[in-house]
C-alpha cells in the first residue's frame, strides 16, 4: 500500500539580486521528482550535498512551499498550508544536528512534550505519562527529563530528538541524516534504535543520507538523486549489486573498501565538481561528469522502467519495455 506518493515535485528558490521586481533566477533545488513510499518500508534518498534530498524532506514537512507537483498522503492530496498542519501529527522529522535542534533554554521534558502542548492533546497527567513512555521507548532514563540539552551527550540529544518526533505517534518518520553528526560508536546505537522502533511501532521511514553503508544495512528501497533530479530508483539489493546509472556506479565505487587487496584500480571515481544548481546542464544533469555521455544526453530525460526499478539514463533506452538489462 502506498503511504506517500510524490508526483512531479518541483521546489525552486528565487534568487533576489534586484531591489524591486520579480526575481528572474531560480535555484531548482528539486526539479520534477516522482517517487512513492510503501507503508512500513524504509525508503532512502541518497545523494551528494546540494542534490535536493533535504529540500524534499522540508517540503514534505510544509517548511518550504512546492512550486508544482502533487503530494498524496494516505490517498489524500496535500495542497495548502492547512493540509500540512493536519499532517503534523502523522509525518514527523528527526533532524541532522542534535545540537541545534534542541532549544538550549528548555528542559528535556518541555522539549519532548511540546508537540502535545501545541496540539492540546491530553491532560497534564496524560502528557506526563506519554512523555515518560516515549523516553523509555527511545532508551533513555527518566532522570533525563529535568536536564537541559547542554547536559546531554550527542547520542542522548539525538534520542531526545527522536522522542520529540515520536510523541505525536506519526505514521511516517523522515530521518534527515540522523547519524551524520554523531560519533561512529553512537551511530550504530541510534541506528539500531531506529530499526527497532520501526519494527515495534510499525513506522514508515524516509531516510535521507549520503552514507551508502548506512543505506545498505537498513533500507528497503533507494532513490538516488543528483542536482535536484532523480537518477535511479530501485530496491536496495538491485541498486547495491547492479547499479545502472553511471552516477550510482560512481557513488558506489566511492565507498571505501576496508580490504586493500580488493581495491579496484579502474574504479569509476568521479572527477570534477557538482555543477551550480543555478545553471544546471541541459538534458541529463550528470552529463558533464559522465564518461558514457553521448549526443542523446543533451535531450531531456525520460524515466525508463525496468522490473520495478526506474532509471533516468539514455544508455538504457533500447531496453525500454524489453524487461531486461
Amino acid at each position, binding site marked *: 500500500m502506498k503511504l506517500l506518493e510524490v508526483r512531479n515535485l518541483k521546489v525552486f528558490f528565487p534568487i533576489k539580486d534586484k531591489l524591486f521586481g520579480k526575481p528572474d533566477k531560480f535555484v531548482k533545488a528539486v526539479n520534477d521528482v516522482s517517487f512513492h513510499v510503501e507503508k512500513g518500508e524504509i525508503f532512502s534518498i541518497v545523494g551528494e550535498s546540494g542534490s535536493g534530498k533535504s529540500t524534499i524532506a*522540508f517540503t514534505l*514537512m*510544509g*517548511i518550504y512551499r512546492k512550486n508544482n507537483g502533487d503530494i498524496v498522503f494516505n490517498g489524500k492530496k496535500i495542497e495548502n498550508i492547512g493540509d500540512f*498542519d493536519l499532517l*503534523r*501529527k502523522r509525518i*514527523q*522529522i528527526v*533532524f*541532522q*544536528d542534535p545540537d*541545534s*535542534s*534542541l*532549544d*538550549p*533554554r528548555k528542559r528535556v521534558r518541555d522539549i519532548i512534550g*511540546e*508537540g502535545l502542548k*501545541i*496540539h492540546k492533546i491530553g491532560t497534564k497527567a496524560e502528557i506526563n505519562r506519554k512523555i515518560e513512555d516515549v523516553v523509555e521507548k527511545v532508551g533513555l532514563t527518566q532522570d533525563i527529563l529535568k536536564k*537541559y540539552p*547542554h547536559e546531554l551527550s550527542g547520542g542522548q540529544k539525538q534520542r531526545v*530528538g527522536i522522542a*520529540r518526533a515520536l510523541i*505525536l505517534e506519526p505514521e511516517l518518520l523522515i530521518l534527515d541524516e540522523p547519524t551524520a553528526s554523531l560519533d561512529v560508536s553512537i551511530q550504530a546505537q541510534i541506528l539500531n534504535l531506529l530499526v527497532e522502533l520501526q519494527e515495534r511501532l510499525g513506522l514508515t521511514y524516509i531516510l535521507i543520507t549520503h552514507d551508502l553503508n548506512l543505506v545498505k544495512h537498513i533500507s528497503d528501497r533507494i532513490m538516488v538523486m543528483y542536482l535536484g533530479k532523480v537518477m535511479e530508483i530501485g530496491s536496495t539489493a538491485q541498486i547495491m549489486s547492479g547499479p545502472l546509472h553511471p552516477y550510482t556506479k560512481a557513488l558506489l565505487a566511492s565507498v571505501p573498501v576496508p580490504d586493500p587487496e580488493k581495491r579496484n584500480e579502474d574504479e569509476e571515481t568521479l572527477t570534477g565538481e557538482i555543477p551550480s544548481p543555478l545553471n544546471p546542464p541541459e538534458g541529463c544533469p550528470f552529463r558533464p561528469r559522465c564518461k558514457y555521455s553521448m549526443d542523446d544526453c543533451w535531450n531531456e530525460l525520460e524515466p525508463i522502467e525496468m522490473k520495478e526499478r526506474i532509471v533516468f539514463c539514455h544508455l538504457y533506452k533500447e531496453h525500454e519495455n524489453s524487461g531486461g538489462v
Partner: protein
Amino acid sequence: MKSFLRRFVKSKSAVAGFLIISINIIFALFAPYIATHQFDDMDFMYILAKPGEGGHIFGTDDFGRDIFTRLVYGSRISLLVGVISVGIGAFIGSILGIIAGYFEGFLGALIMRFNDALLSFPYVLLAIAMMAVLGPGLFNAMIAIGIVMIPSFARVIRSAVLNIKEETFVTAAKVLGASNMRVIFSHILPNIVPSLIIYSSLNFSGAVISEATLSFLGLGIQPPTPSWGSMLSEAKDFLQVAPHMAIFPGLAILITCVGFNLLGDGLRDILDPRLRK
C-alpha cells in the same frame, strides 16, 4: 523560583550590582532623611567650597548648594530617567526588532528603513525635536530619550532574532505545528533575553547623560531641581577652580552604571541554563 534565588545569591556580580542599585533606590526614596541640607539652600558663606568645608561633605557648587544633598535628590531623577527611558526603548525596540527579524519581507524592510532614517539623525537633535513637540518637562524628556533609543534597540534585537530563527530548534517547533506567536514567545524571546539585558544596562548610562543634555538646554528637569546630568553640565564652567563639582556627580553616574552592568551580567549568567553547575 527558589533555585533562581539560590543562584542569584551565588553570583557575585549579580549581588554586587543589586547592592549598588538598592543603595541608589534607598537614597532616592529617603532623600529628605539622608540629605544633610535642602537641595536649593544656598550657603553664601561657602560658595564653591571644597569637600569637607563648612559641614559640606562633598563641598558646594557655584550657588553654595550642598553637593551631597543634590546628589541624593538627583538620584530620584536619574534613576527614573534611566529606568523609564531604557524601558520604553527596550520594549518598543524589541517589538519592532522581533517583527522585523522574524517576518523579514516587506514589513521588516519597512521597519528597518524607517529605523535607518531615525538613526541618521544625531540623537540629541532628534530628542530636541521630540521635546519641541511634547513640550518641556521631566516626563516628556523620559519619553523623548526612550523614543530616541528605539532604533538602536530594534537593530540589536533584529540581528539577534535573525540568528536564532535559523536554528534548527525553531524549524523543529514549526514542524511540530507551533504558531508564529508560540515560536516567538516560547523559543525566540527566551533566547534573545541575554542581548536585551546587556544592551539595556549599557544604555542606562546613555539615558542619564541624555537627560543632562536636555536639562542643559532647558528642556528636561527645570532648575533648581537637581539631576546628576544637570549637575555635571553646570560644573563644566568651574572645572579648573572646583573640580569636585563634576567629580561627584560623575562618580555617581559611573557607580550606578557599573551597578546596572553588573546586575545585567549576573542576570544573563543566571538565566542561561548552559552556565549552571
